[in-house]
């Protein structure tokens, strides 16, 4: 555990809006304790900036418990920071020490334009889901929930994929800025469920088309995404997506 009165140097990306040119600002912050979360540390910094009547650092967050997918900081070069399987909001200051310099940047990708400072726009993810990331069933059309048994392991695998929080760290981590991990997680989740199998191939094709149209890059199997994904989504889902995609392009059901 680190000291309970740390002094930090923070190099933070500041950018007024999407069109402005950005730059790094350096702030020093005293009195940081190991129990604080990383975002609470930024709260303290912002309170200090507001006391100086200046504009606080804009960053996004909501649940602060690793599930909503809102927080999105690149910390010392790592999306969501250096801790494995952790979102930015779950990172705690006990992993830093007195005197550290910490660099904080936004996700960087053409498909995630910067809104302000550390805040980016991830509407492109919504549009990928809209392209086919669902099962076509209307309310009230369902049969009994136990009508189709699903093997426990299969349900578990589906759940592994379904835990994606849509944060975009995979894109930030990828040298090609590909969103294949995100896209494949949804394709794979739904393809695992008998209810979602029917549309699986068409779904894969439509979602990949939208993925490409948004300006995300191609996947070249670098797997940096998996390493940085806070939910540890496996690149095996990308393989699954490729299978669905190929079977559709080869098959005649298009």
């Amino acid at each position, binding site marked *: 555990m680190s000291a309970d009165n740390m002094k930090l140097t923070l190099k933070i990306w500041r950018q007024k809006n999407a069109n402005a040119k950005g730059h790094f600002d350096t702030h020093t912050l005293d009195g940081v*304790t190991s129990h604080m979360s990383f975002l609470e540390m930024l*709260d303290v910094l912002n*309170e200090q900036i507001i006391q100086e009547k200046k504009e606080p650092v804009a960053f996004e967050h909501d649940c602060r418990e690793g599930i909503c997918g809102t927080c999105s900081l690149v910390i010392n070069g790592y999306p969501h920071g250096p801790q494995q399987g*952790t979102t930015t909001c779950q990172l705690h200051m006990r992993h830093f020490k007195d005197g550290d310099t910490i660099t904080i940047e936004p996700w960087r990708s053409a498909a995630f334009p910067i*809104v302000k400072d550390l805040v980016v726009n991830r*509407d492109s993810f919504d549009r990928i889901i809209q392209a086919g990331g669902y099962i076509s069933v209307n309310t009230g059309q369902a049969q009994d929930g136990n009508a189709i048994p699903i093997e426990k392991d299969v349900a578990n695998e589906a759940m592994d994929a379904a835990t994606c929080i849509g944060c975009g760290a995979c894109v930030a981590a990828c040298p090609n800025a590909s969103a294949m991990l995100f896209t494949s997680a949804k394709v794979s989740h739904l393809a695992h469920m008998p209810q979602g199998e029917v549309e699986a191939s068409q779904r894969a094709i439509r979602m990949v088309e939208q993925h490409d149209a948004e300006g995300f890059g191609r996947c070249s199997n670098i797997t940096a995404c998996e390493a940085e994904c806070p939910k540890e989504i496996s690149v095996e889902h990308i393989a699954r997506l490729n299978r669905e995609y190929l079977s559709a392009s080869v098959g005649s059901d298009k």
Partner: protein
Amino acid sequence: MALQSNVPPGELGEKWTKYRSSMPLVAPNNKRRIEVIIVGTGLAGGAAAATLGELGYKVKVFTFHDSPRRAHSIAAQGGINAAKNYQNDGDSVYRLFYDTIKGGDYRSREANVHRLAEVSVNIIDQAVAQGVPFAREYGGLLANRSFGGVQVSRTFYARGQTGQQLLLGAYQSLSRQVSLGNVTMYNRHEMVDVVKIDGKARGIIARNLLTGELERHGAHAVVLGTGGYGNVFYLSTNAMNSNVSAAWRAVKKGAYMANPCFTQIHPTCIPVSGEYQSKLTLMSESLRNDGRVWVPKNQEDAKAIREGRKTGLDIPEADRDYYLERRYPAFGNLVPRDVASRAAKTACDEGLGVSPTGLAVYLDFADAIQRYGKSQATTLNETNASAARIRELGTAVVAEKYGNLFEMYEKITGENPYVMPMKIYPAVHYTMGGLWVDYNLQTNVPGLFAAGEANFSDHGANRLGASALMQGLADGYFVLPYTIGTFLANEIRTPMIDPNGKEFMEAEKAVADRITRVMGVQGNQSVESFHRRLGKYMWDYCGMARNADGLAKGRELIRELREEFYRDVFVPGTADEYNPELEKALRVADFLELGELMMVDALDRNESCGGHFREEYQTPEGEALRRDDEYTYVSAWEWDDNQPILHKENLEFENVELKTRSYK
């Protein structure tokens, strides 16, 4: 105005079915000419938007989040109830209804709750059809667990991420409707006012959070699925941006706020660790299935733990007080939340708390690990398994059930809960109060509907675990899409609402003035600091235990704070850009009024019930003392800056006999 609950006549069990089949319908060709605005994309708003889109209405959906999938519903962990009786343990629609009425301490409307129990079964079917990966048994069937306040296993779950999976199901259905062109989605748009024309809700003013621009949007009806207001306490388990403003703006336009003081304080949250604390983290109630709650029997041990000289592991079995099991043998660790929270407070008030602040009790899994370990060893035929092997096997079972919660705990506290007992303390979690609605989920403002946590409808004075997800989805998928027809059927001749009309222009101007006012103060204190102070007043005077003097004082303090806010708040930046501080300022301004109303409501209710515990009204054993003769009503408040006006809806219990809740 007298409050009409509009509960249909007939036998309890048949009301909804009969009503639904005799409800006025809107023909498909007319639906296409009717616009509905939905604010909120949580379980309630998201489900309603998808379903109304499927039905053929023209739907516009607003969320202040950057995506519908971020709604606070995403954070729900433990599960969702449904009266499926898949476990054959005696569950039924009636039992779920009864448990919910009793759990709510007899302060909710029978007919609404029964309807909720009836449609609960459809929710599970719907979610499965959407591909929600619920937990399953080895045989492939859906798994269940039990939650507090009940004696059957009716909770469905997807690991500790049930809310996430249900919300993604609703989000995906909504996304499908967006792609089909039936729903238009407005991300990062905050509703800042309701617009009324001739007494009916006809649209909203929204602020585009990226540009700061105010927009006018008209519709034939407006639905608020905007969530709860627990953040009035500053520290709560709610997401940081959850707020009351949408509901409060409706209140300022004449809607009534019902039972605002009914707040749920959840017993199992990670305790506060410091001044800078920004929020509290829930440890799902499902943990109480296996975790045992205890404190040391004597104060010396507790003191030694607080000072770091001992840990929980050093306290021998005989010196531990498993106080819930002792006080409530029938329900033990699974008593309802309000009961468990107050018991934790009592233990800490007696000097038995186990964290440096003195405000924490243990939730211990050592016995569960042993029990599961032994049973696994037997299953695996390992008759001579060593103690270490049993621990290993047991730990694996506990990890499968609660792994992500344990991980979350360890990330936050730096302690390993598989070894050291967890430390927990109650925290604000849910608000049973909300906009007053009738059986149709319509507020007293015609055309304005409220669904999910934003309304007051189903949980009385205390909500049972895993019932909010159920209510949000019941409202959104199965109730509102039909009941809204009772209003819209009379609107088929109403042309499209013109967002340039006088009422819209006036409302927009009023919002602009409000923004200018907070931006114009340019004082010395941050918005956050006001919010923090408000939260402290709320917790101290309107928290787990309340009394008349404290409430009167709290009210005064809040009025002073409000005055100070408009004199000394500092909002940086400008109004015509992305400005999170301004967003926060407008929300805190509304909390500063709501907080006062909560004090007024709590002061008015001279009884203890559910989450509302008035120290003056308790039994000799310290249990809540309800006063049915005088307070069997819903308090619906009309806002007034000087003295809010109380309207009462008397609650009629025709099927359930009012009893003192006992979990002993």
